[in-house]
């Protein structure tokens, strides 16, 4: 026989006959001894002298790696990179990491087991095992037990192998020729597969592009669009008053701020300006005044602002005796809450700016009504 045969198959009628033949076939030392049976046979692994599968060790290593990866990643996220207190727990709470560590361990382990078995150990994908094209294959899938002596090198003696199997009690012997091309993965196959995936992506992408272009109202996935959330300027059914954003509870004071003037103007009369009367504060007050107040109240506070004439409004003349007698608190109240046609400036000016404006208005009032003594104060 030729040296290019793949293997010699010996067909046996019973599993016991097969088991009895295995030691004889192995003793002949002609090639690798392999068995093909319709179902697993107890003890055949040991009889064939099969090496213990390395899969268990691979799964163990990858499982531990999964656990370590999950722990490390969660620890890095939660305790190092972006520590946030959640549910009152410390950022490095290992208890919270355990479920994900468990999941990732299982993920790594099962992927290793499944893909490692199929791709690494069974060398899939391949196209047709040579034994599948043998005559014996119909028997192997039914009621025949086949022992194969497979060629290990060029000098394989198929005649001797056939003789050994016959002597071991095979009822039939078949010599399988070597397949004309490799049944295993080829670069050609890989290229075609990748090309196919590329074409599929291209077709799907273009289809989607034109589908959404021509039929814009077709919403294949509305989940993002219709999610329950608050939209700006839209009513929300979540709260009773229909507003999405709720006002803070009355009397709420933001952290680091003072209680603001929320009562009546008379009640605010007792508030004291907390800012020192320094040049810096006058500069802050001047800037805020020119930005926010000047358009109506005028550069010197006489109610002749740059927009007053255009709109026909009558803003208060801050130089009038009435306002010169105002305590600081009442001016502050007017800035925070607005008065008559004047809008509230609580949103525009910070607390410091408001009180600085009060200082500045006081300075304007004193400058317009200066007395002789004021001249004695020499500015450096």
């Amino acid at each position, binding site marked *: 026989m030729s040296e290019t045969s793949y293997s010699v198959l010996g067909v046996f009628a019973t599993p016991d006959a097969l088991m009895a033949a295995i030691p004889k076939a192995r003793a002949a030392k002609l090639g690798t001894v392999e068995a093909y049976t319709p179902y697993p046979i*107890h*003890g055949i692994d040991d009889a064939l002298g099969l090496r213990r599968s390395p899969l*268990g060790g691979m799964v*163990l290593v990858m499982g531990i790696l999964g656990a370590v990866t999950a722990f490390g990643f969660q620890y890095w996220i939660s305790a190092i990179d972006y520590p946030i207190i959640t*549910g*009152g*727990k410390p950022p490095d709470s290992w*208890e*919270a990491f*355990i*479920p994900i560590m468990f999941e990732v361990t299982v993920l790594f382990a099962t992927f290793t087991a499944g893909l490692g078995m199929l791709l690494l150990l069974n060398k899939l994908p391949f196209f047709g095992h040579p034994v599948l094209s043998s005559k014996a294959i119909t028997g192997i899938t039914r009621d025949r037990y086949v022992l194969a002596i497979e060629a290990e090198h060029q000098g394989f003696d198929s005649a001797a192998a056939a003789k050994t199997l016959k002597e071991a009690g095979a009822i039939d012997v078949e010599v399988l020729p070597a397949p004309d091309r490799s049944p295993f993965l080829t670069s050609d196959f890989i290229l075609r597969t990748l090309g196919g995936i590329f074409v599929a992506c291209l077709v799907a992408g273009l289809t989607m592009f034109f589908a959404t272009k021509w039929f814009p109202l077709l919403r294949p996935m509305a989940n993002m669009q219709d999610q329950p959330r608050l939209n700006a300027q839209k009513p929300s059914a979540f709260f009773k008053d229909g507003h999405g954003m709720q006002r803070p509870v009355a009397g709420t004071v933001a952290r680091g701020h003072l209680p603001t003037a929320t009562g009546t103007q008379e009640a605010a009369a007792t508030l004291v300006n907390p800012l020192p009367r320094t040049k810096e504060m006058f500069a802050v007050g001047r800037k805020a005044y020119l930005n926010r107040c000047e358009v109506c109240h005028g550069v010197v506070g006489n109610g002749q602002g740059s927009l007053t004439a255009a709109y026909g409004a009558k803003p208060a003349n801050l130089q009038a005796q009435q306002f010169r007698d105002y305590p600081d608190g009442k001016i502050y109240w007017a800035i925070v809450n607005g008065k008559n046609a004047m809008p509230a400036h609580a949103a525009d000016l910070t607390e410091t700016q408001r009180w600085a404006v009060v200082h500045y208005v006081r300075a304007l009032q004193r400058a317009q009504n200066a007395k002789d003594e004021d001249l004695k104060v020499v500015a450096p």
Partner: protein
Amino acid sequence: MSPNKHTSTLLWGATALGALGVLGTYVTAGHERFWANWVLWFVLIFTLGLGSLFIVALEHLVSARWSVPIRRIPERLATLLLLAIPVGLIALFAIPVLYPGARPEAAQHPILVGKAFWLSLPFFSVRTLIAFGLCVLGLAVLVGGSLKQDTTKDPAFNFRARKFAPAFMAIFALVITMIAFDWISGLTPEWYSDIFGVYVFAGAFLSGLAATALSVLYLQDQDRLEGVRGDHLYNLGAFLFAFTVFWSYIGFAQYMLLWYANLPDEVIYYKVRLAGAWRAVTISLAFLHFILPFFALVTRDSKKDPKRLRRVAYLMLGAHVLDMYWLIFPALGAKPCFSWPELSFALFFISGILLWVRGAMQKGEDMPVGDPFLREGLEFRL
């Protein structure tokens, strides 16, 4: 004197010595400590017996064949339930001492008032008696029937047992939950955890498996289980392996939910066990009950290696004792204590259990010779 008789004398001597220590505990070390130890050993004997009976019932439930040749071992171990009954009846005297729900102060406790009827001494005792009755029923049907089959060789027993097994599973769940909630969780009646019964079940099944594995190896050494091979041992080892994971899964699930919710009346349970000296006990429990046996049994060969299996089985029994100790003793507000009272209780009950099991092992056949599936079980291969 034969070595057999020698061992017997030794065990009786140890029991007597232990009994002296037990009496000494009652007289000198305080009633609370005495009863805490007594309840601990009642729970241990009971869970060991019930876990073994569960193995027997499981075989009938799923019509397992591999375990038929070794079924007589858990059947004999299950008779420990009969030993647990007198121990449990004596333990009823511990109720007014240890269990806050059955004490007169409970009437002033705003939470316990609502549970007063359930936790009261009469109903507590009645529930325990019902549990005992149900155990005796299970023993009579599953173990008694199997023993009778040795002489009658009547396959009708297999059909009867297969029909009874599903019902027994419901009974088993009820009994182990009642015992767990009453005798262990009842020590802290304000605390509750739905999964607690399952946690105790995991420990009970593991202790039954470990005792079964040890007894199988013991009988194998005496050449009394002819035909039982590594394949049978492998299955026992695989069960042990799997249920160490189950135990830790349940234990951690309970811990994590209580830890996350952080409700004062729930989290106090772990607060006590993770503070001070109990912290070391908790960590060693996780190590001895899960990590060590898990890695000891993780490879295929280790599950059928008699030497390895024996060591892990001893470890699991020890870990189960530690587990129950860890459940019961912190609840009493005690610091971890292990001194002559605990030692004499251990001596008394362990030698008592060994005497009982030795007696059971010497009676009758070592395999269920009347079971028609015995041959199939002996031919079992992985």
